[in-house]
């Protein structure tokens, strides 16, 4: 059924327009409607065997939200939406339905019992307009005017319940404030210490082993040559098709290098999340209530009244799918949809438009789209998983991870991931550079998914006869690799300060 909207009042329409930005990325503002709701806009999703030393028995899942955070974006910075639910779903039996859902719910509170911090101004205690009135550190957060907390609930048949702090049994976790700047939060290493004071070891319902959770601001983890990509790939064909060396893939800094993002990171024991098989599928979603009534006498606590059923407006698993695969007319519907219903989007994968567009743009330079349809290679990469590697029996868009395949340590990862394990569509695990622990077997932060997606869409997994340009080393010329990330959970790095 095609969703529709009511007419928006001019006031609301203006507000929505004001919230808009100007660009897109992995899944940043990728659909018309979610571009109006940045707090619930999922930007990237990662799932991989933990490669931190001593954590081989764990899987890390990271859902990033709130795109294009300028580090100086005060005075409110980037709190999460307390009226939304953010979820990470896991399908562990291959039916394209969630078997485990980890649900985050946030709350924001002012200090001083909800009245906010105040200063003496001519004999009156006047509430301050800022979210801090002095330095904040891991040991002293008393200058913080607004604090965010969250709860984490596991929803699962027969073993759901609250995720609790292993240390004290608390059900409520604190989220660190955003990196306002070095005067407020110290040098980056001090901010990191403050942030890591909010990394919790947690007890999971129905699981004997503990997990870990971190929610907080991180430096934007996605790397892409954004402006060029969306300006009809405004680069010479020699660059776009010339990514055969690391140097040629790193000609341009990422357009997102100066941005932050907000990460919801979980580290979960493999034994507690997998089913009878080794492959798990996962995705993230965000939902808001179906009805929002704006309060004409708005307050910090009650800017609106919200109710009705939870309505999903953001969905993300594999990168670039809703960005570059789904047609504009169906992008909002994709965000609204469930993996089990993905047959409705099958044509976008079996008969994709992107390769045809690239042929139009670079045909004069010899770029030719694959000529075999339906594109079974793309179905395997994005909808079913690869047979004998990470297929799980379902046909649905989700990341799939074979949890039996060991992690590859930082420094040894191939940024072209598991794609390097194929030679003209044939799986060869002994192929030079093959790194089966990477995308599309899950996704690690250092996997260069833009280059992988470009190459796979142009037929990298197909025999040459079906894909004349299948072995061309396409690149956006912006490198993504493991050296850009930490070697320990939550792997994504310290956010950029708003001032220093």
């Amino acid at each position, binding site marked *: 059924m095609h969703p529709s909207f009511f007419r928006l009042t001019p006031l609301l329409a203006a507000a929505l327009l004001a919230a808009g930005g100007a660009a897109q990325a992995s899944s940043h503002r990728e659909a018309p409607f979610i571009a109006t709701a940045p707090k619930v806009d999922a930007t990237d999703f990662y799932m991989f065997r933990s490669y931190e030393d001593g954590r081989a028995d764990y899987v890390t899942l990271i859902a990033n939200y709130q795109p294009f955070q300028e580090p100086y974006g005060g005075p409110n910075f980037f709190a999460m939406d307390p009226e939304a639910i953010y979820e990470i779903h896991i399908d562990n039996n291959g039916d394209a339905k969630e078997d485990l859902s980890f649900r985050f719910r946030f709350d924001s509170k002012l200090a001083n019992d909800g009245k906010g911090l105040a200063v003496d101004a001519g004999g009156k205690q006047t509430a301050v307009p800022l979210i801090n009135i002095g330095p904040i550190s891991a040991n002293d957060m008393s200058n913080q005017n607004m604090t965010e907390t969250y709860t984490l609930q596991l929803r699962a048949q027969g073993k759901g319940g609250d995720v609790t702090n292993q240390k004290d049994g608390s059900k409520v976790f604190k989220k660190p404030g955003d990196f306002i700047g070095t005067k407020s939060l110290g040098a980056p290493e001090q901010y990191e210490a403050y942030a890591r004071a909010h990394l919790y070891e947690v007890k999971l319902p129905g699981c004997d082993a503990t997990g870990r959770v971190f929610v907080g601001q991180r430096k934007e983890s996605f790397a892409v040559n954004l402006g060029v990509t969306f300006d009809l790939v405004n680069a010479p064909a020699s660059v776009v098709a010339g990514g055969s060396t690391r140097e040629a893939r790193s000609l341009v800094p990422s357009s997102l290098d100066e941005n932050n993002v907000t990460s919801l990171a979980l580290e979960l024991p493999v034994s507690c999340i997998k089913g009878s098989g080794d492959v798990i599928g996962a995705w993230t979603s965000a939902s808001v209530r179906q*009805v929002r009534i704006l309060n*004409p006498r708005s307050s910090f606590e009650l800017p609106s009244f919200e109710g009705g059923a939870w309505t999903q407006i953001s969905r993300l698993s594999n990168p670039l799918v809703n960005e570059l695969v789904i047609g504009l007319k169906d992008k909002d519907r994709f965000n609204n949809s469930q993996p089990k219903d993905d047959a409705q989007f099958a044509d976008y994968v079996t008969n994709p438009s992107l390769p045809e567009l690239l042929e139009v743009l670079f045909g004069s330079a010899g770029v030719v789209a694959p000529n075999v349809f339906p594109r079974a290679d793309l179905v395997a990469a994005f909808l079913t998983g690869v047979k004998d590697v990470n297929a799980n029996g379902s046909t649905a868009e989700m990341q799939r991870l074979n949890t039996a395949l060991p992690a590859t340590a930082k420094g040894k990862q191939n940024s072209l991931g598991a794609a390097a394990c194929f030679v003209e569509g044939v799986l060869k695990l002994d192929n030079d550079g093959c790194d089966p622990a990477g995308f599309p077997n899950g996704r690690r932060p250092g996997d260069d998914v833009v280059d992988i997606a470009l190459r796979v869409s142009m037929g990298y997994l197909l025999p040459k006869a079906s894909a004349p340009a299948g072995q061309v080393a396409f690149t956006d010329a912006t490198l993504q690799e493991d050296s850009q990330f930490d070697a320990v959970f939550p792997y994504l790095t310290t956010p950029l300060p708003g001032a220093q």
Partner: protein
Amino acid sequence: MRIFFSALIVLALVACGDDEQTLPVEPPADAAVTPPAPDASAPVQSAPIPLQLWVDDLLDHHTNDDSAPDTVDDKNIADDEDSSHFQDRF
């Protein structure tokens, strides 16, 4: 007190509510409502449902974890823009 902007309704993107009861609301006999312009892609439905009643139903009977969102494009929702109806929600 002026109530021009006493409330604005934001209807989030709506998913199909296959497993949910659809709205049992009927317009009151004296309702004087003007149906919104029909969506070209949606079939025009029969009796218009006053927006306020529909929203009340969503708020009062579907605010829980198990409800599915109600559908929109299969209904003829009539908005008389009298937002004072929602004052009591605050």
